[in-house]
């Protein structure tokens, strides 16, 4: 039974206001707050603060999540009471992100300023886009080195070798070798796709990993990476799209600092990073309702916030369809034909949003976010040819890594030859099936050769087919291989190969059946002939006996007639007898 109103109290949870910190400190991150009751049921939640929550009087646990140890407090809420819980804020606890944006660990003025200078520069007409790669290591340490990192175009040609230190800007003191806190690289490019290739030593993937970037006209694609002991960490990547000529750090400029847009810009950067971290953690770190609709709608100048935000909105239930529609529409205006926007269009159509009658253009470049790529690949399965054949999007199908936020794949691709092509990667993944015969290993290689699939995937397909065969399946169907990421065409080629090898024994069965049927036919024929022969033989015997009976009957009849005639005509019969006897004598004499 619900208690009466008098039995309720009011609970509030707030961050402590420490002296020395500005209110709304740029480095603070809204913390997730949870309140549970004595059955450990969640009765209230919020971000940053929880104000005036009415609950029945009783005992509750307040928990505030934190990068370090969470804050927990047991509270008693009396009837008609007001209880306020203050949790400590720790300015050393920003978001674990290297991007120099409000709320993150990479937020340092000495990092934002040089970045801002680069982003403010104009581009040329022929190359209206910019790629910026910034590696940060705020605490310093060993000099930052990007050995093995490079930018490539679709054909695999190296655009920039990021190991070349002369390409970078860095803190003036000490020269390039002393760049321990930050390094920035930038290059102006034409619109389109670029691949960032990086060395990766995570278990199971040793060699190189590629990640797609998309450059839109009049936009900078900014890649932030954190470093530890001088080594950039691919796992820390954060990507922003920023308008060329617009300030990334308006608070640094005397003339811009007081402009009304400055707080929005800072808030949008903070919200972008929170949205990204929400996608990375699989758990919302911000309430999309609390993100000012201005950030996504009216003052929308941050496409990545729109892209991340749309992904988060599509994951929620129920879905805010109007907001999704509006954000998507804004994105199409800001960054038309951006692969991530195309992917979001596909994903929104799956839930009934978007104009289904408007055909989607075929795609050739993968989106930067992996969920978007998976949606594209699924769409291509339903509508073969949606991903342009032999495009980058097509070639990486079976190499894309699972998990993670960003689309990444193992290199080198067969179409991405470069002097950095890693033998180690090929060696590690081109593995004869251990314990199996060479024939099976050869099968995997042949499937890869015919379809262009990654050999590791071919081995998995083979293993899968063997399992199916063991389970008594007589064939493998195209839908059985949808999980591989292959296209329908690649699957057809694979199945054709299985048929040629008679992998499931269909030919042998047919031949066996055929042999059996021929034998049966021959046997049937033999039986038929036998019966005919028997028939013939028995027919011959009947005629013979019949003929015998006939001739015997005739003789008897004749004698009878003669006897009757003899009785009637005795003289005639005597002359006849003499005649017969005379001829008999003559015959005897002969």
């Amino acid at each position: 039974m619900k208690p009466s109103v008098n039995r309720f109290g009011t609970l509030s949870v707030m961050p402590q206001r420490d002296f020395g910190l500005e209110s709304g400190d740029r480095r603070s991150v809204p913390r997730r707050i949870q309140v549970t009751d004595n059955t450990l049921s969640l009765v209230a939640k919020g971000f940053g603060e929880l104000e005036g929550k009415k609950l029945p009087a009783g005992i509750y646990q307040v928990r505030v999540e934190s990068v370090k140890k969470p804050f927990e407090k047991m509270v008693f809420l009396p009837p008609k009471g007001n209880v306020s819980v203050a949790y400590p804020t720790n300015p050393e606890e920003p978001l674990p992100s290297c991007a120099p944006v409000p709320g993150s660990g990479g937020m340092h003025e000495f990092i934002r300023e040089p970045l801002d200078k680069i982003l403010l520069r104009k581009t040329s007409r022929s190359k209206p886009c910019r790629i910026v790669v910034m590696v940060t290591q705020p605490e310093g340490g060993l000099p930052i080195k990007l050995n093995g990192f490079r930018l490539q175009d679709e054909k695999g040609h190296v655009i920039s070798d990021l190991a070349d230190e002369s390409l970078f800007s860095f803190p003036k003191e000490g020269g390039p070798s002393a760049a321990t806190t930050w390094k920035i690289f930038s290059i102006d490019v034409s619109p389109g796709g670029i691949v960032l290739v990086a060395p990766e030593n995570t278990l199971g993937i040793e060699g190189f990993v590629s990640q797609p970037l998309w450059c839109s006209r009049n936009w900078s694609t900014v890649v932030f990476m954190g470093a530890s002991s001088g080594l950039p960490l691919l796992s820390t990547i954060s990507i922003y799209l920023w308008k060329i000529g617009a300030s990334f750090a308006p608070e640094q400029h005397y003339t811009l600092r007081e402009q009304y847009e400055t707080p929005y810009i800072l808030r949008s950067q903070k919200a972008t990073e929170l949205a990204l971290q929400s996608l990375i953690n699989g758990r919302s770190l911000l309430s999309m309702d609390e993100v000012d609709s201005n950030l996504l709608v009216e003052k929308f100048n941050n496409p990545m916030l729109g892209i991340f935000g749309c992904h988060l909105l599509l994951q929620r239930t129920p879905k805010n369809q109007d907001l999704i529609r509006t954000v998507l529409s804004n994105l199409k205006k800001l960054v038309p034909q951006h692969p991530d926007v195309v992917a979001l269009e596909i994903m929104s159509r799956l839930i009934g949003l978007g104009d289904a009658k408007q055909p989607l253009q075929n795609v050739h470049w993968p989106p930067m976010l992996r969920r978007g790529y998976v949606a594209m690949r699924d769409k291509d399965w339903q509508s073969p040819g949606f991903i342009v054949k032999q495009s980058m999007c097509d070639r990486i199908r079976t190499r894309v890594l699972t998990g993670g936020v960003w689309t990444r794949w193992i290199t080198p691709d067969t179409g991405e030859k470069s002097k950095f092509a890693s033998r180690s990667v090929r060696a590690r993944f081109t593995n004869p099936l251990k314990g199996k015969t060479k024939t099976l290993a050869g099968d995997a290689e042949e499937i890869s050769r015919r379809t262009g699939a990654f050999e590791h995937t071919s081995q998995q397909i083979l293993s899968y087919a063997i399992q199916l065969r063991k389970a008594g399946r007589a064939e493998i169907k195209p839908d059985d291989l949808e999980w591989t990421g292959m296209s329908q065409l690649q699957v057809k080629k694979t199945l054709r190969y299985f048929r040629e090898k008679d992998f499931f024994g269909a030919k042998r069965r047919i031949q066996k059946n055929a042999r059996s049927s021929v034998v049966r036919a021959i046997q049937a024929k033999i039986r038929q002939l036998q019966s005919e022969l028997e028939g013939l033989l028995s027919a011959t015997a009947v005629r013979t006996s019949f003929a015998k009976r006939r001739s015997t009957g005739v003789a008897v009849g004749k004698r009878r007639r003669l006897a009757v005639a003899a009785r009637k005509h005795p003289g005639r019969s005597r002359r006849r007898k003499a005649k017969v006897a005379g001829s008999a004598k003559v015959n005897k004499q002969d």
Partner: protein
Amino acid sequence: MANEWHYAVVVGVDQYPRINGGDFDLKCPIDDAEQIKEWLISSGGGDVHPDRVKVLTRLLPAGRNPPVPVFDEINEAIIECTEDFKRRREQKFSKQADQKEAWKQSRFYFYISGHGVDGEGDDAVLITANASLISLNHISTRSVLNKLKTSRAFADLVVWADCCRDLPTVTIQDLPWDLGERGYNIPKMPRSFIAYAARNRKKAYEPNGGSSKNSIFTQVLLEGLKGGVPGKHVDSDNLRKFMLDCVPRRALELTDVEQHPEINADTGILFGKPVIKDYLVKLTPRAGSVFESLPSVDILDMDNATIRSRRTFLADSDGVFIGRLETGFYGVVPPGGNPLQDGSPVQPIGVFGKDTNETIG
């Protein structure tokens, strides 16, 4: 009487000899698998017939060539369970109505402990013992669930996955099963209880030292199953809440790292018989507080602004109040106090599935 139509496959992978020469090995999976098996076959717990609990570790079944367990035998164990269930059901009952009733009581447990892969967001993928850097062999719990759900092989599906979800790989292999239709079209069935030890792209941990031989997630799971949950019944709802609260707490205590489980559960799945488990609670009054020098204190169990129960803890010779409480939140008050009415001082405390020492006042 055993749960006649319950089955289980329990897998623990502790050694990965083909990865980094043994650097990848774990301490707890064999004990994890053993303890889960013990709960499953105990009459107060899962009450599953021992013949229907298939345990696959490096040691069991004996006589296999390492590295084990591998994908094939895990696969076969699950299929054997589905086949055996179908066969026994059909042999025992000739009428479809009786077979349907038997199906409604069925359950399949799938427990895994070992290293894991970052799957497609809603998956926990166990790396099998014969995995190598060259080939990250694995089995996907999401694939198992999808196949069993589609075929309606069992009415209840329980997956407990104590493995990391952070290592990337290329392509999660689907399962080559085609079980066909095995069950019945009943609304809201099959039900499922799916608990992963860590969130997407995060690690699960083993304790650093301490007396327990189990991984953190499995420790808390077993504690909850044995009655540590709030309330008398261990059902899907309160087991989920218990684990969401206590796994992070236990991880911080034992390893000083964050670990948050991910749990999705349909309501109404009961685990084991009703049991009330209590824990030793010691309350030390702070010097100068209202509780100092009291001969006893009252412990109030409050719910919805009413006092559900009141019990008394007596002070020992050191003035420490000692008693036993079940998991839950309580208010400690001086004898006879009622903070809901007379505003008496109250110290809120929590008991979270383990013995508790608190300072009050």
